């Protein structure tokens, strides 16, 4: 690989981009699973703290979604 944006470089970047996008889709799905998991857990143990845990869960999901959109649009 050289440091100019030649054909090899572009191919490598394309491979990395494709792998990263697949990874991000799986990761986004995992973040949705975490929300489901919190819902299941918070039915088992009900307390005031659960709402903060939901907030972190949704925050995490939106961060992953933002990265996914960034990857789709920018890179």
């Amino acid at each position, binding site marked *: 690989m050289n440091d100019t944006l030649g054909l090899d470089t572009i191919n490598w970047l394309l491979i990395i981009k494709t792998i990263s996008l697949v990874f991000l889709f799986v990761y986004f799905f995992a973040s949705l699973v975490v929300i489901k998991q919190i819902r299941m857990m918070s039915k088992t143990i009900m307390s005031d703290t659960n709402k903060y845990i939901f907030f972190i869960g949704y925050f995490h999901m939106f961060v992953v979604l933002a990265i996914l959109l960034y990857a789709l649009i*920018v890179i």
Partner: protein
Amino acid sequence: MLDSLIKYPKNIRFESEERDETIYYILRRHPITNLGWILLSLFMTLLPVIAIILITPEESNLVKYFPLSYQLFFFLIWYSITIFITFENFLLWYFSVYIITDKRIIDVDFNGLWHKRISEASLDNIEDATYSTNNFFHILFDYGNIMVQTAAEKTEFEFDSIPKPSEVHDVLTNLVQQFKKDNP
């Protein structure tokens, strides 16, 4: 709210709680047992910073090989994975609890994304409870295990790494004695 030993919790309920049931204790593993994943999270948080400090000019050429948008992308992925690992470990610690009520003991066990196991035993079925502190850390941080022998199909409960095991053991054995006296 994030305590590992909660006496007479006011705003906490559990799934199969009965109307006239009183919760005496909600117990979680001692916070020191979380040290492993906390250190891992700290390491993952600091690793990019350490890498930037330690990276040599020759190696920095390899980083510069990637466009800036890719570098930012990898950086964001790395920190979101760090958040994921930290949060998942916290959830498993927070929701895996042992509950002692005036009627029964309950072991709520979450393991991984899907695994959930709830075991319970009536105080009437408890035959014997013993506690143990097995190593240096147990004594230093005052935590240990309580083994509960029951007459039911599941013969043994283990309250693993709970804080103040002697105090909890005392309360549990007193409750069992009282329950058996009140319900002969």
